[in-house]
C-alpha cells in the first residue's frame, strides 16, 4: 500500500500512515485547524478505507494532538468510525490517545471519543518540557 507522509505545519498535523508489516506506523500529531478540513482529511480517510480491506493483524493508531478545532473534531470522529468498522469485522484495533499531563480538556476529549466509538482506547499522558 502507498505510504502517506504529511509534514506538520502550524495549522495542520503531521500524518504518517505506513502499513509496512515489519514496521507499521499510523500516527496523527500536532495541531489541527486546517483552512479546509475536508480536503485535508479526505486522503487520510481514503487510505483507511483501502487499508481496511486487508488490514494487518493488529492496527494501532496513535493520536497525539496538541490542539484541534471543532471542525477537525468531526473529521477525527470519521477516522475513528472507520476503525470501528474494522473492529466490527472482528479485526484487532487499538487507538492510543496521547495527551499532555496538564491538559484536562485533551484528556476528556479522548474519553469522549472512547465513549462514542466502539474501539479499544488507551489513554497515555506525556509531559511537555
Amino acid at each position, binding site marked *: 500500500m502507498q505510504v502517506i507522509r504529511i509534514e506538520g505545519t*502550524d*495549522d495542520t498535523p503531521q500524518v504518517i500512515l505506513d502499513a509496512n508489516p515489519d514496521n507499521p506506523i499510523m500516527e496523527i500529531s500536532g495541531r489541527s*485547524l486546517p*483552512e*479546509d*478540513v*475536508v480536503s485535508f482529511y479526505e486522503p487520510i480517510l481514503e487510505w483507511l478505507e483501502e487499508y481496511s480491506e486487508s488490514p494487518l493483524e493488529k492496527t494501532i493508531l496513535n493520536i497525539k494532538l496538541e*490542539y484541534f*478545532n*471543532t*471542525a477537525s*473534531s*468531526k*473529521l477525527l*470522529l470519521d477516522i475513528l468510525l472507520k476503525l470501528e468498522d474494522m473492529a466490527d469485522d472482528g479485526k484487532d484495533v487499538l487507538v492510543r490517545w496521547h495527551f*499532555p499531563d*496538564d*491538559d*484536562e*480538556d485533551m484528556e476528556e476529549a479522548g474519553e*469522549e471519543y472512547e*465513549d*462514542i466509538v466502539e474501539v479499544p482506547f488507551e489513554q497515555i499522558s506525556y509531559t*511537555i518540557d
Partner: protein
Amino acid sequence: MADTNKNNIDLDFVYDFYTKMKNNNVSFAYEGEISHEITKVFSSLAESHIAIDNESNSLKRRVFHVMIESLQNIGKHSEEKIDKNSPTDGQGIFFMSKTKNEYTITTGNSINKKEIPNLKIKLEAINSGSKMSLKKLYKEKIKKGRLSEKGGAGLGFIDIVRKTEQKLIYSFLDINEKKSYFVLTSTISRTK
C-alpha cells in the same frame, strides 16, 4: 487650514478611541476581514501575549481555543464580505480584554435578520445547559452532524461554553430592515 482642522478631529478620535479601549480593558481590537491567515496570526499573538503574563498552560490553551472558534465563526457567518463567493473570509470586529479575574473575547458581525430566531434558540439552549447536558448535546451533534459547506461542524458555541464554563453574552443590534449586528462575548476565568 481646513486640512489642519481635519487632522485635529482625527487626532481627537485616536485619543478618544485609546481612552475607551483603556476604560474597557481592551488589549486588542480589530475590524476587517477575518481570513484563515488572520485567525492564525491573532491566535498566536494572543498565545505569546498570555505567556508573558505567566498564565497556566490550561488557561493559555482555553483562550487560544475560544479565539480560534470565535474568529472562524465571524469568517463563516458574517453577512459582510469583500469577496461574495468566499465561504470563509467574512468581515467583523474582534476585541480581547483582560481584567484581574478574566479574559473576554468579543466578536461582532452582521447577520441576516432571518437567522436571529434560530440563533437565539441555539444560544439559549447552550446557556441554560448543565455540564452534563452540554456534554450530551456535544456528543449528539458530533455524531449526527455533517460539516456545512463552510466547513463548520456546528459545535463552536457548545465547545466554548464547555471549555470556559461561562455563559455566552450576546445581543442583536438593528442595522436596517434586513440586517442586524450580532455581538458575542465569551469569558475565560483567570482563577479557575
